[in-house]
């Protein structure tokens, strides 16, 4: 089922090149990755709600309509099952769709296409049918959008076999991981936290704008990044919580507390080696995750270490969203989010014992 449209040139892309000096927001970095790939590969197209003239509610597709036209940047009806399934069928026929689910929270109306079809066709077909598709979605809270528009939910996708799950924290990784996701012959769920996009209309961390190489490059999917080296405590985290953890690490360094921060960058595949290596060094593990606490990423990361060698763990704790829906009122929401204050308290607790 090879597409006659698929005329991508076989480019060998740089892997994690020097960042250089040009700065972009995470949103612009994603747009650039999509745009550069679309320019050389007719089989790539973008589809979703408000991805055209609006440019994506969280700016994932700004400018693409002007460059590539409505045939390749397609607004859809509010019919997630239909258009995600459409992406699957097109991918099966050799195209490389990038489909946006506006909020991760909306998977409830279309999960069957995602986990029973997109994720399983390759396995059920014994490897004979590939589904090279990117399903990108916004996630995360912190701006009082309530319980149905603030969830992260990446752990839910990661729990179900057959999809890669990528969650970039910064512009450099977002571009390289998006390029890798489009390049992948497997379905990739690409989750971007609204708070790392660098949007002008919500609070953002300074790190949501950063140096990004102009040429295409890849960040390999499944390789964690040591975002900061340290010796006393390991924080394993992802997405916006990486920035909070780095802020805390910087603050505590002046007190002589040395924090290592691991940015997982993807949940599937999970870079178990980097986790174990770090905890072998520090003996103290804190998992910071804006997803729900129970039955998710945080427990998984701790299990990785415990299964490897439980004696490595002198201290272990989690800073996650406790098992409640995300509240609306600012005071309540910030009581459940993994804030810098909660992370700092967890680090102090870990080194105190």
């Amino acid at each position, binding site marked *: *089922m090879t*597409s*006659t*449209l698929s005329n991508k040139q076989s480019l060998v892309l740089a892997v994690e090149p020097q960042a250089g000096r040009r700065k972009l927001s995470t949103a612009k970095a994603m747009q650039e990755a999509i745009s550069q790939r679309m320019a050389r590969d007719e089989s790539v*197209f973008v589809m979703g709600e408000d991805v055209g003239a609006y440019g994506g509610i969280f700016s994932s597709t700004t400018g693409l309509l002007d460059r590539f036209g409505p*045939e390749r940047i397609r607004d*859809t*009806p509010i*019919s*997630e*099952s*239909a*258009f*995600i*399934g*459409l*992406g*699957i*069928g*097109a*991918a*099966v*026929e*050799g*195209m490389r*769709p990038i489909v946006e689910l506006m909020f991760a929270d909306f998977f409830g*109306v279309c999960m*069957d*296409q995602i986990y*029973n*079809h997109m994720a*399983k*066709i*390759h*396995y*059920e*077909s*014994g*490897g*004979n*049918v*590939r589904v090279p598709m990117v399903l990108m979605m916004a996630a995360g809270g912190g701006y009082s959008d309530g319980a149905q528009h603030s969830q992260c939910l990446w752990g839910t996708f990661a729990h179900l*076999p*057959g999809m*890669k799950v990528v969650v970039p924290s910064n512009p450099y990784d977002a571009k390289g991981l998006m390029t890798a996701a489009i390049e992948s*012959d*497997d379905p990739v769920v690409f989750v971007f936290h609204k708070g790392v996009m660098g949007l002008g209309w919500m609070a953002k961390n300074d790190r949501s704008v950063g140096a990004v190489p102009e040429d295409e490059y890849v960040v390999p999917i*499944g390789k964690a990044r040591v975002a900061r080296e340290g010796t006393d405590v390991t924080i394993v985290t992802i997405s916006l919580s990486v920035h909070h953890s780095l802020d805390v690490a910087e603050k505590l360094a002046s007190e002589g507390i040395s924090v290592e921060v691991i940015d997982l960058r993807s949940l*599937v*595949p*999970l*870079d*178990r080696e980097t986790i174990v290596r770090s905890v072998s060094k520090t003996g103290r593990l804190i998992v910071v995750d804006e997803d729900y606490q129970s039955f998710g990423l945080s427990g998984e990361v701790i299990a990785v270490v415990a299964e490897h060698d439980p004696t490595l763990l002198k201290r272990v704790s989690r800073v996650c969203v406790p098992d409640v829906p995300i509240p609306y009122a600012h005071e309540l929401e910030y009581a459940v989010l993994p804030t810098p204050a909660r992370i700092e308290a967890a680090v102090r607790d870990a080194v105190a014992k």
Partner: protein
Amino acid sequence: MTPPTTQALTDEARRDLLSTMVLIRTYEEAIRAAYYADKKPAFDIGAGLVPGEMHLSAGQEPVAAGVCAHLTAEDAITATHRPHHLAIAHGVALRPMTAEIFGRETGLGRGRGGHMHLFDPSTHFSCSGIIAEGFPPALGQAYAFQRQSGSHVAVGVTGEGAANQGAFHESLNLAALWQLPVVFVVEDNDWGISVPRSASTSVASNADRAVAYGMPGVRVEDNSVEGVYAAAGEAIARARSGGGPTLIEVHTLRLWGHFEGDAEGYRPELKSVPEQDPIPIYRDQLLASGALEDGQYQGMQKIAGEQVEDAINFAKNSPTPDPLDHLSYVFSEGAHS
């Protein structure tokens, strides 16, 4: 809309329709026999050479024969949990299909899929065990065909129970909106497992629902293979020429249970069902019209029997998957992490 009048069918074309139906029935009877062969005296769904749920399509052959007569291997079809008749009529090779049903390494999915999950890229055939969820991928295949500027079409098939699912309605709207080269076929076999259509569906004909999406809708009564052939021919030609989607509902017949082992105690009209079997009805019709001569039907049965026996033997003699290989094929480059 009323069904279009039957296009001029040659006697040979009529015999081809009958012969496809005979092959399907022969296949389903053989699978049924293999399924029960080692489930006696006590029925254990997970036991035997062919374990698991088994949804056989006996009685629904006219849909497959009538639709697939208009398709080539370049056209796509997405079927349901009851997929064998459509796979056979669309030309999926019997050997790897049967090996998959037997859970063998030589199967279409190397034994990872099973009878509800048959994928044959060489004929663009697939199916899904989830009600109505085969429609959205059919849209995507149609979309790819449209973008590739060819004249290939995708056909999505569901049962009448699926017409009450969201994915069904989302798909019809999107297909009509984007004028995709897709044809939707609803197999109305009167039963959603044990629930009669009268207890599930608010309209007398699902074809009436087409008007809500601005596309033609046709209902074919009487499980007529020539009625299906005519309706599908018009719809597929329209889709091929850029005229967009059509919804066809066929009033067909579930000759056997929802799945094997279903005693059908809920089905009051069961006694009269064998009289409605579409194959002898069509055979007699062709005999009466002179399209079929004495002995030709037996010839069809003989050829079908040989093909099916070959496929069953191939499956039985194929290796089972290596249990150590259970992690392969999650991702294209092997087991993840």
